[in-house]
């Protein structure tokens, strides 16, 4: 049972990690938390559901469709909910947080109108492929989920540290005005960030559908809250922190059920987070305190 639960935990943790990566990317650059990220993720799941179950198209098309739709949503989010507030002098830093909350409520209700409130079956032959190692049954989906999350993490950190665009992004994150003066098109950089983060949310949505076979219009909320907890725990803006935090939360939730009491699943996982934050307030991979950064 231990190995099976380990696989369950890693699968859940990998999905948490991808959701958290989207949060951490936006936070790292914009210093705001995008509360609509969970709902964009949910839309990614529904778009791929429509493509796979209703249109009968293969899985890669579903990924592509989810990425295109969520990236477009990210673009609209940035254009209409974030940029107008950023350019307005005197707008509070919290204003954009509130506007993303507004977007998330809007998206949840739109999803309710379009898709209804119940659970929808996410059927794909790919999700049925499994193989046995010794006494344990492993689904190919579970391996793919782990690989995709590792790939996204490595790719993202390489992109940020090695490429010109990544450098520009970090410069924008460091100081918006200075970066602008030095010739970085900061609006473009910010748009790119939000779009990429949203597309990653879309990918996570497809993976949830494949892993759990069911989606509903509430998954954005529950997954979104977990993602938020993870970036605080892993270190705000840290790519590795999101990955490690996601895996730790996923594993601890699973093992609380396996060896403890399932009624305390969320409670124990979050108590663990609080304890770690008491010891390391900046989070697992967090950088030095805020005043050194600004």
């Amino acid at each position: 049972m231990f190995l099976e639960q380990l696989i369950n935990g890693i699968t859940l943790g990998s999905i948490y990690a991808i959701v958290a990566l989207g949060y951490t990317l936006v936070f790292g650059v914009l210093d705001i938390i995008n509360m609509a990220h969970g709902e964009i993720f949910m839309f990614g799941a529904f778009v791929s559901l429509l493509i796979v179950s209703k249109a009968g198209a293969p899985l890669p098309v579903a990924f592509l469709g989810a990425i295109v739709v969520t990236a477009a949503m990210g673009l609209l989010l940035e254009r209409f909910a974030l940029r107008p507030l950023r350019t307005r002098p005197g707008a509070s830093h919290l204003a954009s947080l509130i506007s993303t909350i507004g977007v998330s409520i809007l998206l949840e209700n739109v999803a309710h109108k379009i898709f209804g409130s119940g659970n929808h079956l996410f059927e794909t032959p790919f999700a049925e492929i499994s193989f046995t190692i010794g006494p344990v049954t492993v689904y190919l989906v579970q391996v793919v989920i782990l690989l995709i999350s590792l790939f996204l993490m490595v790719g993202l950190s390489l992109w940020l540290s090695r490429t010109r665009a990544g450098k520009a992004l970090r410069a924008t994150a460091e100081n918006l005005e200075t970066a602008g003066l030095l010739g970085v098109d900061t609006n473009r950089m910010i748009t790119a960030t939000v779009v990429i983060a949203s597309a990653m949310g879309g990918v996570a949505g497809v993976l949830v559908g494949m892993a759990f076979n069911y989606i509903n219009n509430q998954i954005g909320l529950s997954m979104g809250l977990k993602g938020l907890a993870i970036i605080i725990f892993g270190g705000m803006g840290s790519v590795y922190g999101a990955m490690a935090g996601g895996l730790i939360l996923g594993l601890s939730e699973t093992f609380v059920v396996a060896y403890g009491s399932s009624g305390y699943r969320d409670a124990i996982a979050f108590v663990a987070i609080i304890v770690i934050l008491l010891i390391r307030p900046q989070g697992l991979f967090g950088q030095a305190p805020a005043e050194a950064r600004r």
Partner: protein
Amino acid sequence: MKRTVRLFAVVACALFAFMFMGAEKAKGEPIRAKIGVISIITGQGAAYGEAITNGIKLARDEVNAKGEVFVDLKIEDSSGKQEQALAAVQKLINSEKVVAIIGPTLSNEMMAAGPEANASGVPIMGTSTTAKGITQIGKFVFRNSLPESQAIPAAVGQAVKKYNIKKVALLYGNDDAFTKSGFDTMKEVSEKLKLNIVTIQEFQKGQADYKAQLTKITSLKPDAVFCSALYNEGGVILAQARKMGLKVPFVGGNGFNSPKVIEIAKEAAEGLIVATPWFGEKSDPQVKAFVAKYEKAYGKKPDQFAAQAYDAFYIMTNALKAAGTADRAKLRDSLAATKNFQGVLGKFSFDAERDVVMTPNVLIVKDGKFTIFN
């Protein structure tokens, strides 16, 4: 003064007309009775009230046509509110002078209306009130709605007998009062039947991933899983369990008792066992006739609420016949003596506490739909 005279004249005319009508019908001499109905006609929950009043009206038309009893219905709206249910019961008893009352719809409405009827000595019968302690209000309070605490033991009992179940795993939603109370009943029954409970697992509403709980249950190899969940979560649980290779029978509470479970879980729903007082697909001719008549009159299939109300009206008028007169106290006594009434819900009796004695239908999902389990 003039108005009083006119009013007197109208009343006198009405009285004459009434006497004349009475004389006309004197050959069959039907027992005339005014029965009050309290239901939710407006506001949230009006769908229940609609089904209930439809069921009662259908039964009244049938009974009145037979000519043994002639019932005049007085329907009052409670809007699902306690104070309105209380006002309605007072109006029916004091102004309308009804001989008995059917309703109200909700258990907490009955908690307000029941004591009033009981104190006035008017028999009152709930058709959809399933909470604990309803008929304990007093000796004039009845109900014909089967509480979940009776439905679950029936399903569990039959499943245990058929599959020779010894070890069970319990799984329930711990953040919902309904699924929690269903779980309490399941646990109680398991202990009474001396089943070995290998694990108790909990989950929360809206959860997407039940694999951790299900992996643990699978590893303990139970003979069956008793699962108290609403259909939305229940369907997903079934699907994930079957995919994982957990093929043992699942016994569910009333929350599972919905065609939606099959819609969500598809073939994974096969083997799910539930108990319900009303099963419209029964091959019983009485049930078939009721479903056909109801569908013709209202354009849809009768649900549990309509069926319970329909039977309640028959129980009431049968008791009237037995009493021989529309007298509140005599009606109460003959109601309480109801034994083996054969209605669309099945064979029905009142116990010493005027509560339900009946065998619910135990159903199993087979070939994509609910069928009788045996």
